[in-house]
């Protein structure tokens, strides 16, 4: 390599850095920066009226799962926190499963419509996004509350005599989240099914596969990237959901999001809030890593 070529290469490397500077600045300011603040705060002691005291402490992290006994200062497992974590994970998994169960037939239906009406169906799917999340959640509240639409209709029809108690339960949060996140499942599934070659269905039937076998052995493996994308898009925000459990869980059926909010508000325990936020981040990253590994395994299988 000549000197001129070396100089030219060095110049192009410099140019590369120069061109990526704006992106790097934005990433530092808005992603890495705030995250570092959260990390630092999680290792400090809580201040009297919120905020933090600049004093190294592991109490924030310890508080995630353990609680200090008020009488003898020993640490015990914080049952309430475990319950909140478990509820968050459980409801998020259930939400992902329900949105898939409802979203898959929906996406299939849209993808198999004629090209003209397909755009209309997709448009209808996105309509809920036009309304504020809070308003939509209150609408769900209106449907499922004791004197709400659902109970009124069921009682009028004579199906039940006492109103079903759904509001302010896990079920209410579950229904609400499934409703809110359904489009996030439908859209990637639609994209995957839209690319699916319908001739493969005939090929499957032709080769002695039953309908169920065609679904399991042909359709699902091929649209799997869409299933994974949809599941991530639903599972991740479900885990950190705040508004839905707040409105439909009635403050008692807390999820991680509400628990974090509590620490920065009434709880006046910012380090615990920061540590909880990071825990959420770790859970989500872990879940994503598992997904990615699972997704890659099958793709590389055939080589």
């Amino acid at each position, binding site marked *: 390599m000549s000197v001129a070529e070396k100089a030219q290469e060095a110049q192009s490397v410099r140019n590369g850095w120069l061109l990526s500077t704006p992106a790097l600045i934005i990433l530092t300011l808005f992603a890495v920066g705030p995250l570092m603040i959260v990390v630092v705060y999680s290792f400090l002691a809580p201040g009297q009226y919120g905020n933090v005291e600049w004093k190294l402490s592991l109490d924030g992290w310890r508080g995630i799962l353990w609680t200090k006994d008020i009488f003898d200062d020993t640490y015990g497992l914080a049952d309430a926190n475990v319950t909140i974590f478990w509820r968050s994970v459980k409801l998020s998994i259930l939400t992902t499963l329900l949105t898939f169960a409802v979203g898959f037939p929906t996406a299939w239906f849209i993808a198999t419509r004629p090209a003209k009406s397909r755009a209309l169906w997709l448009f209808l799917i996105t309509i809920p996004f036009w309304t504020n999340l809070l308003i939509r959640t209150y609408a769900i509240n209106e449907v499922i509350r004791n004197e709400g639409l659902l109970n009124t209709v069921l009682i009028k029809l004579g199906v039940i005599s006492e109103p079903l108690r759904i509001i302010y339960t896990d079920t209410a949060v579950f229904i609400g989240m499934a409703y809110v996140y359904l489009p996030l499942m439908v859209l990637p599934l639609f994209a995957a099914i839209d690319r699916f*070659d319908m*001739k*493969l269905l*005939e*090929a*499957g*039937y*032709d*080769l*002695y*596969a*039953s309908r169920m*076998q065609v679904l399991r*052995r*042909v359709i699902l*493996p*091929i649209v799997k990237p869409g299933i994974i994308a949809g599941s991530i898009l639903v599972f991740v925000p479900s885990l950190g959901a705040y508004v839905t459990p707040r409105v439909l869980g009635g403050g008692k059926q807390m999820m991680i999001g509400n628990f974090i909010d509590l620490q920065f508000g009434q709880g006046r325990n910012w380090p615990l809030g920061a540590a909880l936020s990071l825990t959420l981040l770790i859970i989500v990253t872990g879940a994503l890593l598992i997904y990615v590994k699972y997704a890659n395994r*099958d793709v590389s299988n*055939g*080589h």
Partner: protein
Amino acid sequence: MTKDTAVEARNAVKAFGQGDTAVRALDDVSIEIRKGEFFTLLGPSGCGKTTLLRLIAGFEMPTSGTILLDGQDITYLPPNKRPVNTVFQSYALFPHLTVAQNIGFGLEMQGRPRAEVKATVDRMLALVKLEALASRKTSQLSGGQQQRVALARALAPSPKVLLLDEPLSALDLKLRREMQGELKRLQTETGITFIFVTHDQEEALTMSDRIGVMSAGKLQQVGTPREIYTRPLNRFVASFIGETNFMPATSNGSTLTLAGGYKMPAPPATKSGAVTVTVRPEQVKLTHTPEPGSLPATVRGVVYMGTDMNYQLHLADGTEIEACVVSDVTGEAALQAGQTVGVTFTPGAAQVLED
């Protein structure tokens, strides 16, 4: 239906749409396909040949009529219950499976034991010469290789009938020629009945034991390639397969008289009156000067085609015909445009059309 009939369609009708706007893709088609034969359904696109194939495969149900396989009514049997496999035009290989997994798919779905599946897959891989690619994904294969996988996959469960829906149309000419030979070899080796759909008349003539020519949802003629080529029943069959000339003539039952007084013997059982006669260009003989008993004609155009010379001729009554003559080396024997020549036809080459 005889004992050696593999597939039979009886008065099969398939209409798409409702009421007055309904289109009859298949209009009362009855056909018998024999066991172990290479049968080709030939016709232009939209003639109903693929619809007939899909009725046999079970992807569609006929509006009326019956489909029989080995004498059993399979009209409403779903495709996964029919011992019939299809090679699709687009191949429709499973992209998430390897070559070997694709080939073994049908056997697995039939619930055959693992060892048997593996043995059959290996045998099929050898049959289509793809042993080296067994563990490749199908997306990594060339068109010709994908074609072979599609064939092996459809042959693996040893179907009673193999349906091939224009399987060669996506290949280039050289590969297509190669695959034509390959298909014929596979059919002979396996002894399975092949029903092959194509719009390519050359493909049909070179590969088939028998051909069914279709047009506008109807079966026009069924016969061996030679019968179809030399004895077309009607104008559609005559013009769809190869080049041909049509000439008006009058018949008295035993002799055909063309305009200009040219006489030739009529084929047996020719009706009397005005008829249309067809003669292939290569059966048209030319002499440099109109001799007695020949039909005078004027050369309008001369096209050198390598092996052949193609002449456009005008008969005295204005009918245009074509003659195809094997070229001579020097070109000295070639006729010139504007020249008046004598036309005769190879005895027995003339065919009288039904319509």
